[in-house]
């Protein structure tokens, strides 16, 4: 764990993955580059979820609200107030972080099943709120951010977020930043603290840890990561709608993380990419994509609870973070 050799190996792996994804921008066909852009942003969402579910052991069924807080926190100011892209990206993240703080303080009073239900219910309230204030959000129909709204121009440079390559590179930048942050985080004393809380909360309290504060920090960080993904999603793809706040978007990150491997740094990327292409592939002969999600959830939880990278770590690469 503290060996220098494994340290180099771990950083090489993660930087290698980022380099590969960068190269992909120049070789992928247009369609797949589009898919990858989406996957990178949603994998960031999944990484935020993984911090809480995988590492801290808190199973939330309401993470759509943090993603959607970023989405609306960025999308509403752009659409209604004409704010610039960087500024509204900031408000999106801020909105998610604030919401996570409030929800964390309340929901962390509960544990286990009650925590799952409480987070689900708060997310439902958030979803209904986006429907209720339909004058501003246009509910399920949503808001379309025009190309003009999604242009950054620092010093006269016109950067349009609707340009596929720009979009890909920005998505990759966000993904890489959160990935490297996650890597540092989970290998830090705080990361060890979170994993230990997952394993034995009572013992941690008796080792002098403020368990509530550590969990709250994890919820807020998780909320920030998810909100950054939501804000980026709205700005890059130009659509902000209630659908992203619905229960389905709370279940999807759980599915992606389970598939890729909970409590692995690269699992969220692997899981999201895999699920996207499974659905993409099967959509050729069936429209029943929910059926696939359902079957995947059951099969994973039954036979493969450690997910792809979790299994790889258990069998072959013990050093995988």
């Amino acid at each position, binding site marked *: 764990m503290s060996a220098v050799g494994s340290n180099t190996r771990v950083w090489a792996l993660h930087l290698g993955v980022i380099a590969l994804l960068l190269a992909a921008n120049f070789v992928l066909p247009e369609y797949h580059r589009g898919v990858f852009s989406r996957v990178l942003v949603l994998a960031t969402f999944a990484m935020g979820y993984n911090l809480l579910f995988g590492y801290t052991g808190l199973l939330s069924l309401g993470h759509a609200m943090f993603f959607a807080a970023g989405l609306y926190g960025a999308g509403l100011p752009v659409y209604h107030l004409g704010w610039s892209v960087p500024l509204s990206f900031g408000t999106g993240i801020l909105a998610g972080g604030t919401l996570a703080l409030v929800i964390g303080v309340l929901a962390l009073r509960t544990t286990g099943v009650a925590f799952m239900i409480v987070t689900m219910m708060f997310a439902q309230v958030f979803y209904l709120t986006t429907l209720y204030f339909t004058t501003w959000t246009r509910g399920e129909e949503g808001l379309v951010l025009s190309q003009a709204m999604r242009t950054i121009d620092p010093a006269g440079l016109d950067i349009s977020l609707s340009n596929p390559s720009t979009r890909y590179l920005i998505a990759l930048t966000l993904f890489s930043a959160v990935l490297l942050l996650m890597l540092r985080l989970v290998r830090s004393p705080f990361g060890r603290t979170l994993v*230990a809380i997952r394993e034995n909360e*009572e013992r941690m309290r008796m080792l*002098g*840890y*403020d368990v509530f504060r550590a969990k709250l920090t994890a919820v807020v960080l998780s909320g920030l990561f998810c909100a950054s993904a939501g804000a980026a999603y709205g700005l890059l793809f130009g659509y902000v709608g209630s659908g992203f706040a619905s229960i389905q978007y709370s279940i999807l990150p759980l599915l992606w993380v389970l598939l890729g491997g909970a409590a692995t740094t690269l699992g969220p990327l692997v899981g999201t990419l895999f699920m996207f292409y499974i659905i993409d592939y099967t959509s050729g002969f069936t429209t029943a994509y929910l059926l696939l999600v359902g079957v995947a959830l059951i099969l994973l939880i039954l036979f493969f609870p450690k997910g792809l990278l979790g299994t790889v770590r258990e069998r072959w690469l013990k050093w995988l973070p």
Partner: protein
Amino acid sequence: MAAVTPLIETRALSRHFGGLKAVEAVDFTLQPGEIRAIIGPNGAGKTTFVSLICGRIAPSSGSIALDGNDITRLPAHKRVLAGIAYTFQITSIFPKLTVYDNVALSVQRRLLKAGRVVAGELDAGVAQALARVGLADRAQTLAGNLAYGHQRLLEVAMGLALEPRLLILDEPTQGLSDGEIEGFIALVREIAKEATVLLIEHNMPVVMQLAQKITVMNFGRVLAEGSAEEIRANAAVQEAYLGTGRDG
């Protein structure tokens, strides 16, 4: 006025569970540097009493002071930072983490309190704690794969690594072999050079060898207190406890 402020002092400390008076009006003082044993029949309230001291359970009434400062309302994790470490009666470790990580959690807690965690100091702290309990060569083993006796030692190492002022050991020798118990007695003597030790123990030879003073509890109350000789001679204790045919 006593020359030294007691490390721990409880006044009229009580804890009731519904109608059950698990701990009832206990006045108790512990001087710094002591090795104290608490003995008593099963259900006498020993574990509840030390749980009140370390903060795992909140008292129904009464007060607890550390160095003369009231800590009755202090949450458990802050008491640990103030120097009270507790090792569980039922082994409570992190089975899916390595032995190294188990102890590192204690060491990093201590380092965090002082400032920041430097990798070198962390490694050194873990190595030292593991060496003291004789588990140095098992650092990379998963804690759950250790033999039972070694898990008990790991539990003690986690307490030690906090560098506590008071180490509470709840039935530490339960389930250990005779050889392991002997090693354990030496270890506690070693620990007692730097910390006060409060020990719940059923094994009488261990108590007689280690404790400078013994507190006997029965039905949630303190029945007697004194040196090993005094306790042996105490008629009430004999009737309530030693005379009931317990071994030792």
